[in-house]
């Protein structure tokens, strides 16, 4: 779909979706937790922006409500909660470096191409405009998944999970002009409850292994099996 053929509002949707994809990369590559949380907040704000623009384009007023809800929840409340958690867990200054940042970036680019290839057959279904955005949102979901795989830090993994949710929301908004309000409210509260549960889990994990590096959970099981060799490693 050439952008010259689209009305201006839909051009905005496309641009915002592309920026959202870029922010996924930022969250993926950011070594500092606080900066990653800020990038996540911006992603939430962009989702809200997309929702508002779709609402204006499709003349569906209930989407405005959904945009405000998204803005409040994903751009303000959840980032604030994560921010507070990181401060209480004293993780602000901790930088987690990816072992192969270039490789992870290339994997993310490969995921984008893969999701584009997956969505290509939908061309036949005459969804020519939304197909593009569906490819983007699928890529956002997959990059969130990649982030949960490559990061060792529990808080960073939660960020990956949340940005996966952002991708799903983008797909819902752009492909079907929004879900019914009841479903949307349900999902919003699900995310909120998940966030609270994650907060409890963080403290549980830290209390049991003294760190939020999830990789150490593997080592703990090895330690119970093997007798004394692993003990020096943990300390």
């Amino acid at each position, binding site marked *: *779909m*050439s*952008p*010259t*053929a689209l009305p*201006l509002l839909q*051009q*905005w949707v*496309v*641009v915002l*979706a*592309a*920026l959202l*994809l*870029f922010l996924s*990369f930022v969250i993926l590559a950011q070594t500092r937790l606080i900066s990653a949380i800020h990038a996540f907040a911006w992603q939430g704000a962009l989702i809200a922006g997309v929702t508002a623009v779709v609402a204006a384009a499709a003349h569906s007023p209930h989407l405005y409500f959904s945009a405000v809800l998204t803005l409040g929840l994903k751009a303000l409340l959840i980032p604030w909660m994560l921010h507070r958690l990181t401060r209480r867990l004293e993780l602000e200054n901790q930088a987690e470096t990816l072992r192969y940042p*270039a490789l992870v*970036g290339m994997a993310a*680019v490969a995921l*984008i*191409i893969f999701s*584009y290839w997956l969505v*290509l057959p939908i*061309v036949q279904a005459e969804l*020519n405009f939304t197909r*593009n955005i569906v*490819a*983007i949102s699928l890529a956002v979901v997959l990059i969130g998944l990649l982030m949960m795989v490559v990061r060792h830090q529990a808080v960073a993994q939660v960020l990956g999970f949340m940005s996966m949710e952002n991708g799903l929301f983008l797909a819902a908004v752009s492909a079907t002009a929004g879900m019914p309000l009841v479903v949307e409210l349900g999902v919003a509260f699900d995310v909120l409850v998940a966030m609270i549960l994650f907060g409890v889990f963080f403290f549980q994990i830290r209390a049991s292994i003294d760190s939020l590096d999830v990789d150490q959970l593997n080592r703990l099981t090895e330690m119970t099996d093997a007798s004394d060799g692993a003990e020096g490693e943990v300390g």
Partner: protein
Amino acid sequence: MTTLNWTFAIIQAMIYIVCAPLLVGWVRKLRAYLQNRRGAPLLQPYRDLRKWFIKETRVAHTASPIFTIAPVIVFMTTWLAASTIPLLTLNTPTTALADLIVLVGLLALGRFFLALAGMDIGTAFGGMGASREMLIAALAEPAMLIAVFTLAMSAHSTNLTQIIDYQLGSGFVLRPSYLFALSALGLVAMAEAGRIPVDNPTTHLELTMVHEAMLLEYSGRHLALMEWAAHIKLMLYGVLIANIFFPWGITTTLEQWSTLPIAILAVVLKLMLLALIMVIAETVLAKMRLFRVPGFLNLALLLALLGLLSHVMLEVGV
């Protein structure tokens, strides 16, 4: 008509030579204002150039002919590269030459001789500067090429004039690929023109300098040519970004002379604004460690790649 066109092409190329120091003077003035200084007068770069041309030119006795010929080559390639970029009008006889890949190639040729000149005397600083310049160039060039290919894919041509023509013809359209290509080219321009997050053009501190380290042994008219080439390079990137992404105001044909003043005004305004943005970025950012420069240029590469992908995914009609 052709003679008129040729004269105009030559005039346009001369404008680059004449006005580049003025742009640098404007950038320095703005920067001084943002740092609460009064700063040197706007015409100071011209005075510096005149001073260097008058002064005696000394050449180290270990220098090979490359050392003396490099300033001329660097100046000429930069100028030739600049003259391919449409400044005021699109239809000049040089448009056939105005190819983006030629542009990148010409800049690379100039950089090659700059690095050779840096290593020629055999001082430690020159070699260090040359190796750093090559590191930056090797990382910046792929990003620039991919950004350029993104533009070329939209316009179906690598010719600059046709790209600008296409952009003018389609009116105001929001393209994510252009947005990404613009940011990538902006980052590359900062790195290639030796501006602050990558290199500081005003310092002569051993540990940080890149471009200055290669010019350390030059004096007199050689130094003047090298500095002038650096000025032209800054203006080249400015005009490139201004006229590709915001081409409005440029004259498409020379038949109507009345559009020429508008074109001049437009390009001056665009360059002044771009300089302002660049200076604000330079004032806010700190110079980074050399080992963080690859990360900076990787970001540019990623942006360019995303531009290419978003063009394929979002903008190509199937």
